């Protein structure tokens, strides 16, 4: 049934030198002994809202869909946009046209070849139903300029267009033209990825199987971020939804699942020395933030917001909410990345200065008004952070009350001007995508996080997206960082990580933004 597995066993009998030679013959360019075949079970905590890759920005969906679909461009391991289904692109000097040749011979799971018509149809659909359809708002028109070429005509020059177009948040995946008119969630779930859809039982599992007609990207030696040369070794992968963290861990230990998206840290510490389990640290993974509502009293007062900023002990919040997997970071970028703004704002971070907070509160004329701390029951990091913050606010003399609701309600409430003062949130994908994505959530017009727009910040955002060079954008981002520590509309708590875990017989797995089911294999 699985000839390669037998060979691999024989290989181990031959000793190292012989093994290397044989493996090289089987899979040129790779050193390890991959085994074809097997069924990998991956466990995650929540149900994918949709498997229609472009309509949702949920991580639970992305975990699965990024194995099924591909985009024209995507991020490399080093978070640089690279062509995946595209051959590349050329921009006209005025920045108004992008000519994008496509890779030839790329097959969909339905056996048809991808052409420019599919690409145009997919992107037109993205404009209508894509979860972040504004990604394409800089594009005026998509023109088919060849069997394997599309040309984007822009509204205005957008220097950071390709970066945001490569965003995996709600990926602009390429699907067959036949699905172009399908309502969200009603497509045939056909893509070009290394795995194809088999079945989906909501609240239970999604099964994919290897797509044998997959067209590898020959420009690379191996996988690179969201793209590169992908090789599917395993026959099948099942994404099991196990909502309970403890049950997920138990299933991993029992060998019922092979890979966990995230393992709670106490369990990770317990299993660190287990020979059966391998841990994969994903650090940093997300910003932990605390959003203040500048429209409702008492947080409409700048002094009150400043008091909260200086009174808080970020280390305590992070240590508890992340269960110990965190780094302290006041920056609105990860340290050491291209747009790292440095020490700006550090003087306000992790002070835990209760006296200064009390003085500021007095100055603000704070008089025991209720502070409603909005959080949700679904995401443990959110509600744990809220519990710790509430205790700290009380220590400052703020009359804090937690309002814990379920996630949809929280999303609804925080769009209101009143009824809440603070909201805890993990910003997962934006920091990964870079300064534009982070700032976009805070500036007009998208601005889901700030209730009261700040004109200075909005202007800086415009400067950021139109900044012609990296240096110009870096300078702008430093100003943004500065501004955020002037208006105190959002408190940066720190960076948190996540810990993935796998059975030790899963080989080739690496920590990444989504679980790559290609280039992993089962041993033994």
């Amino acid at each position, binding site marked *: 049934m699985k000839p390669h597995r037998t060979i691999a066993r024989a290989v181990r009998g031959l000793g190292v030198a012989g093994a290397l030679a044989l493996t090289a013959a089987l899979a040129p360019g790779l050193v390890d002994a991959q085994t074809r075949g097997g069924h990998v079970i991956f466990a995650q905590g929540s149900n994918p*809202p949709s498997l229609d890759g472009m309509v949702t920005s949920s991580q639970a969906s992305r975990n699965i869909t990024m194995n099924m679909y591909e985009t024209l461009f995507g991020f490399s391991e080093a978070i640089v946009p690279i062509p995946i289904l595209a051959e590349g692109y050329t921009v006209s000097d005025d920045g108004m046209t992008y000519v994008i040749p496509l890779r030839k011979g790329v097959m969909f799971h339905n056996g048809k070849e991808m052409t420019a018509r599919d690409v145009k149809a997919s992107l037109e659909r993205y404009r209508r139903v894509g979860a972040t359809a504004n990604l394409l708002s800089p594009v005026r028109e998509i023109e088919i300029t060849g069997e394997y070429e599309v040309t984007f005509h822009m509204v205005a020059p957008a220097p950071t267009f390709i970066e945001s177009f490569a965003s995996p948040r709600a990926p602009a995946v390429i699907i067959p033209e036949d699905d172009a008119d399908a309502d969200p969630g009603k497509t045939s779930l056909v893509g070009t990825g290394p795995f194809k859809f088999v079945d989906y039982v909501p609240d239970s599992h999604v099964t994919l199987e290897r797509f044998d007609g997959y067209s590898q990207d020959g420009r690379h030696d191996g996988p690179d971020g969201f793209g590169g040369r992908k090789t599917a070794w395993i026959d099948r992968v099942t994404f099991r939804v*196990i909502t309970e963290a403890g049950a997920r861990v138990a299933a991993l230990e029992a060998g019922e699942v092979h890979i966990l998206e995230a393992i709670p840290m106490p369990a990770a510490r317990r299993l660190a020395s287990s020979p059966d389990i391998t841990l994969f640290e994903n650090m940093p993974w997300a910003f932990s933030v605390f959003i203040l509502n500048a429209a409702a009293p008492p947080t409409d007062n700048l002094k009150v917001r400043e008091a909260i900023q200086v009174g808080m002990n970020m280390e305590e919040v992070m240590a508890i909410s992340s269960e110990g997997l965190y780094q302290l970071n006041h920056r609105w970028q990860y340290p050491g990345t291209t747009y790292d703004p440095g020490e700006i704002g550090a003087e306000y971070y992790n002070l835990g200065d209760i006296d200064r907070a009390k003085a500021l509160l007095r100055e603000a004329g704070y008089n025991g008004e209720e502070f409603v701390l909005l959080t949700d029951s679904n995401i443990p990091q959110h509600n744990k952070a809220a519990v710790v913050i509430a205790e700290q606010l009380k220590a400052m003399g703020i009359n804090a009350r937690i309002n814990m609701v379920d*996630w949809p309600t929280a999303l609804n409430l925080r769009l209101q001007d009143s009824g809440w003062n603070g909201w805890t949130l993990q910003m997962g994908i934006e920091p990964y995508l870079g300064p534009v994505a982070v700032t976009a959530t805070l500036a007009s017009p998208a601005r889901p996080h700030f209730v009261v727009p700040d004109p200075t910040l909005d202007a800086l955002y415009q400067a950021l997206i139109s900044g012609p060079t990296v240096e110009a954008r870096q300078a702008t981002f430093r100003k943004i960082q500065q501004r955020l520590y002037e208006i105190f509309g959002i408190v940066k708590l720190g960076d948190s990580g996540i810990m993935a875990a796998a059975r030790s017989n899963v080989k080739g797995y690496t920590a990444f933004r989504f679980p790559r089911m290609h280039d992993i294999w089962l041993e033994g």
Partner: protein
Amino acid sequence: MIRFLLARLLSAVPVLFVVSVVTFGLMWLVPGDISAELGGTDATAADLEAIRQRLGLDRPLWERALAWYGALLQGDLGYSYLLNRPVAEAVFERLPVTLSLAGLSLLLATVMGVLLGILAAVRHNTWVDRGATVVALIGLSTPDFWFGIVLIILFGVWLGWLPTGGFVPLSEDPVGWARSMVLPAFTLALTQMGVIARMTRSSMLDVLGQDYVRTARAKGMRRGTVIFRHALRNAMIPIVTVVGVITGVLLSGAVVIEQVYSLPGVGRLIIGAIQRRDFPVVQGGLLVTACVFVFVNIVVDLLYGWFDPRVRDAR
């Protein structure tokens, strides 16, 4: 008999109507809707409004209610935006899991409960009786979901004998199915076993004290024959009643146990749908569950008549 059945079925109609109205009322009260779930964290108010319009959630409640009842009369339970499939399909796919969980635990609870009860009654006022009574009471007083967690720690984690959760369909792997159902069924059975044991004990005590049982014993019939053929038969009437009540309780309890053991049953479907505001699933799911309830009650009534000739003849 048939008239009785028809009358019972007809009387279920207003009950189900109340169920659907209450469900609609709840949906109206629940803040938020599915747009947040579909739109995700980054969606702006305008994005959410667009989703609402697309799904018709911006229409007034009465309009949606009318459309829903209209479809229901044609046997259509509606469509789930989130699961992306007809509600009926989703519910009926889950129903066997819930029913088999409830059915298995009913069996376990009845067998264990009746045996424990008989034991206590036959050894009335001995340490066996007291022991059985204490076991029954402890079963009755233990929160079942907590007991489930304790069993997971014990059998799943420490001993590693049974899976800690998850479900294997019977059609795929009967052994795997049995393994995945043992702990949940036992957890759920525990509480109700206590109820049945207590019922059986008192009912048996009544019967054992009656003249004909004493006569049978006096005539030299074997103890086992007396207990199982004569006494138990007559003690069954109240036991059947209690079993009927319990079936409802078990269906309800199954909802929680499904959560504890991650079983894909109707309860988990409905709870997930409530949390994600997938209203058609909540409505359809509750209606189907209520139908099962009503149906079970009718069956219990019929059984009751079968066990008690007086009721049967009166009809």
